[in-house]
């Protein structure tokens, strides 16, 4: 693995840039940072799911001069966590509404953890409790609705030879990054012009430095230059560190400013599981009309997602769910009605796939149900229905390039081992059935519709000295390989070895706002900007001398047309495609499902770094296996019951199948070196493939995830 100027970096699995630091323990995550004089922070939360906060009482028996207490009254700016809608307060105020069990009410900081816990025991909260709304069926408040209409679905359903209706449910899921949420805030007092004004620097575990930057400015009432956000090495995100870190950062900053010293606010796993955002649960109903020959004529789809107690990113999650709801299929008549509602459960938010896994789960299983009713193989139906070059999607987007449904389907079928059933049974497993299922999905790369245009992401590439280059971007490394693939892209565009290129720190005082590290946009959109900036820099260096810096801002190609009002047009610049084949063993006596093999063929356009691309797909696939089989959140009175790692289970090495990835490269002309985004795609396919495999094994249909042993036994009993 040596680099030379002669060999291009793109397409080679070069060593991860921060790999040596990660394998030696030198990589510093937030809680690893040593901060002399820092105090420890803690969040005091509501203990009721809904009501009015009547009083906060600080027990006079405790000496409060030894700690710092922050309430809503201490917020200098707006008491809001800035995102889409201004509904979420940073701290509930006395007389204000409590909307969920984990609502932050008060903050504490103390020089040691023992004193902090002692102080926490002396805080009393009084409420006027109200009956919470905990099920989405009972919700009365709507965050957002979307309607997508193509053709005339009512007529098409009326004249269809066969109409199949089915309702599916999807459950909550925790991102479960292994490093919990955390931030350290450093207050400072300015000097020179504007002296006396005090600002704050926050270092934290986060995906989107500028989201946190905006939220801090708003809550603290500070101008741009008095807020600095720096990403520490981050131990996983999966969407869970998209918007939630703003809450942690605001709380840490409020404490630090009042304490006049740095404050560390590091969640333990229990608090992280109990209070942070989860994948939106939902209910999705399909009515599908087909002709006698299996021709797909109508898709009428209704989606309801539970947003929880505050809006967070729910409208955008709903949007991605709606746009992907018809699946990777061409249908002339489509109606998708999507609605997100409010309940008194902790807010749900971003999680890899962002609504698409929910709606694609239903779409893929619908293919199975229609095939069963028609008495044909679902594989044949997929081949008949699948989107091909020139077809149009539910939003009327005509697919003009890099359309790979057929490519990935063929690649997966070719790679999957011969399926043997029944397998020889061991004497201690007398009633195990084996089955196989398949799914075919697509996932839009980049922000939806005009999102990238509005975002106008920025990067810079600079030549700091002859032969020395640096990339400036706010896109973060959260394990997916951002720093490595950006270096590869820049090195090849500059025509230099990769070791000549460094990546500047994700520090808002140093790097431009490249937009958030989300939406499968990092490689394709931000990587494209880096390629363009590096190409121009290389050109200018033939005439000019360093130091030299080239900035780039995203400009939407004029070929992309999207109408936010009608939800018609080019929803995404391009789509990535995947076909997943899953094999399962189902124990008929216990209902336990074991996923024994997963093969997934993925069209990523171009694998900038094949090993990392496979790593994304394998990790995302296992996260989806967990969602489909064992990751269940149980709730009582609006509180998650299994809010510990001993009770919220994710797959271990013993649960995980060997996931085999087939990379298919059908290049996209708008992506750097042909690359498309694939970060989220692997979350979409495994769940429906596993449910189909369970049916193949047992003859029972399950309409929801996770397919826990209880649900499998119930389905087997009733089939």
């Amino acid at each position, binding site marked *: *693995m040596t680099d030379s100027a002669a060999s291009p970096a793109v397409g080679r*699995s070069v*060593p*991860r840039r*921060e*790999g*040596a*630091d*990660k*394998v*030696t*323990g*030198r*990589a*510093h*995550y937030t*809680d*690893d940072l*040593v901060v002399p004089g820092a105090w420890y922070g803690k969040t005091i939360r509501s203990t009721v799911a809904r009501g009015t906060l009547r009083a906060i009482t600080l027990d006079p028996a405790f000496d409060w001069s030894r700690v710092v207490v922050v309430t809503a009254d201490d917020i200098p700016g707006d008491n809001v966590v800035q995102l889409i809608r201004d509904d979420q307060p940073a701290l509930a105020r006395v007389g204000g509404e409590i909307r969920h069990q984990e609502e932050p009410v008060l903050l504490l900081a103390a020089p040691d953890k023992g004193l902090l816990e002692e102080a926490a025991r002396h805080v009393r909260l009084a409420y006027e409790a109200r009956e919470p709304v905990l099920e989405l069926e009972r919700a009365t408040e709507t965050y957002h609705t979307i309607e997508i209409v193509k053709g005339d679905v009512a007529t098409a359903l009326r004249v269809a030879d066969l109409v199949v209706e089915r309702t599916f449910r999807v459950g909550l899921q925790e*991102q*479960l*990054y*292994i*490093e*919990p949420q955390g931030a350290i805030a450093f207050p400072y007092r300015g000097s020179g012009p504007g002296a006396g004004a005090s600002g704050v620097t926050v270092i934290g575990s986060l995906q989107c430095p500028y989201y946190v930057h905006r939220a801090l400015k708003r809550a603290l009432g500070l101008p741009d230059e008095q807020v600095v956000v720096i990403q520490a*090495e*981050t*131990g*996983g*995100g*999966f969407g869970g560190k998209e918007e939630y870190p703003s809450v942690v950062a605001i709380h840490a900053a409020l404490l630090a400013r009042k304490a006049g010293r740095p404050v560390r606010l590091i969640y*333990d*796993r*229990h608090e992280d599981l109990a209070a942070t955002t989860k994948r939106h649960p939902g209910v999705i109903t399909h009515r599908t009309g087909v002709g006698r020959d299996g021709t797909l004529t109508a898709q009428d789809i209704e989606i309801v997602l539970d947003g929880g107690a505050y809006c967070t990113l729910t409208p955008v999650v709903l949007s991605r769910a709606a746009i992907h709801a018809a699946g990777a299929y061409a249908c002339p008549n489509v109606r998708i009605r999507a609605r997100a509602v409010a309940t008194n459960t902790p807010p749900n938010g971003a999680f890899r796939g962002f609504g698409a896994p929910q709606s694609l789960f239903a779409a893929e299983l619908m293919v199975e149900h229609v095939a069963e009713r028609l008495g044909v193989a679902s594989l044949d139906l997929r081949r008949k229905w699948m989107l091909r070059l020139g077809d149009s999607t539910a939003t009327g987007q005509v697919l003009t390039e890099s359309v790979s449904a057929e490519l990935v389907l063929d690649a997966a079928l070719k790679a999957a081992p011969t399926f043997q059933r029944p397998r020889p049974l061991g004497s201690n497993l007398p009633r195990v059935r084996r089955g196989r299922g398949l799914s075919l999905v697509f996932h839009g790369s980049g922000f939806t519709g005009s999102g990238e245009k509005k975002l106008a992401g920025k990067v810079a590439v600079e030549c700091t000295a002859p032969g020395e280059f640096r990339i400036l971007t706010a896109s973060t490394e*959260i*394990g*997916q*390989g951002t720093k490595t693939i950006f270096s590869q892209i820049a090195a090849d565009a500059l025509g230099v070895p990769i070791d000549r290129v460094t990546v500047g720190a994700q520090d808002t005082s140093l790097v431009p706002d490249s937009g958030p590290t989300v939406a499968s946009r990092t490689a394709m959109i931000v990587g494209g900007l880096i390629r363009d900036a590096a190409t121009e820099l290389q050109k200018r260096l033939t005439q000019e001398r360093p130091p030299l810096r080239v900035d780039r801002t995203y400009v939407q190609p004029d070929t992309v047309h999207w109408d936010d009002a009608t939800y018609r047009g080019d929803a995404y610049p391009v789509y990535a495609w995947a076909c997943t084949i899953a094999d399962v063993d189902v124990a008929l006596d216990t209902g336990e499902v074991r996923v024994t093999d997963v093969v997934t063929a993925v069209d990523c356009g171009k694998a900038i770094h094949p*090993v*990392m691309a*496979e*790593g994304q797909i*394998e*990790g*995302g*696939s*296992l*996260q989806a296996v967990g969602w489909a089989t064992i990751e269940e959140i149980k709730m009582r009175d609006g509180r998650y019951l299994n809010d*510990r*790692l*001993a009770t919220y289970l*994710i*797959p*271990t*090495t*013993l649960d*995980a199948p*060997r*996931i*085999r990835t087939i990379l298919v490269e059908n290049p996209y002309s708008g992506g750097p070196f042909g690359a498309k985004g694939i970060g989220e795609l692997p979350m979409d396919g495994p769940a429906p493939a596993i449910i189909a495999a369970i049916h193949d094994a047992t003859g029972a249909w399950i309409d929801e995830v996770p397919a826990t042993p209880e649900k499998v036994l119930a389905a087997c009993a009733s089939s």
Partner: protein
Amino acid sequence: MRFVLNGRSVAVDAPGSRRLLDVLREDLGFTGTKEGCGEGECGACSVLIDGAVVDSCLVAVGQVEGCNVVTVEGLADGGQLTALQQAFIEHGAAQCGICTPGMLLAAHALLQQNSQPSDGDVRIALAGNLCRCTGYTKIIDAVLACRT
């Protein structure tokens, strides 16, 4: 009390009930050992105590008096990465990296005891270490690549 940390004798002045994890991270500055759950479920805080893989969040420092403790910082010899660390980088076994120190120690302990582990052996040895990024396939491949 004293114990041997990464080959060197260290003296710590801490209550015997203090978690080994906190002594390592806060008192001795060995922050390569991570805390993921604090209740022995995730393995991010795995260390070797006399060669055995143990969750340091569940160990009181008093229990390791006189023991030989190895953390991730003790694997590379003078900046030279071990074959296992090198294999983790080459195979893409470290993504976000937070589980990596614990994974490396669990894998190292396995390879010390069994130089020819099977895929199944590796899975059993790493079953106490959770990873959310990789799906484990590349971690297992990295360990299998170090069979001697």
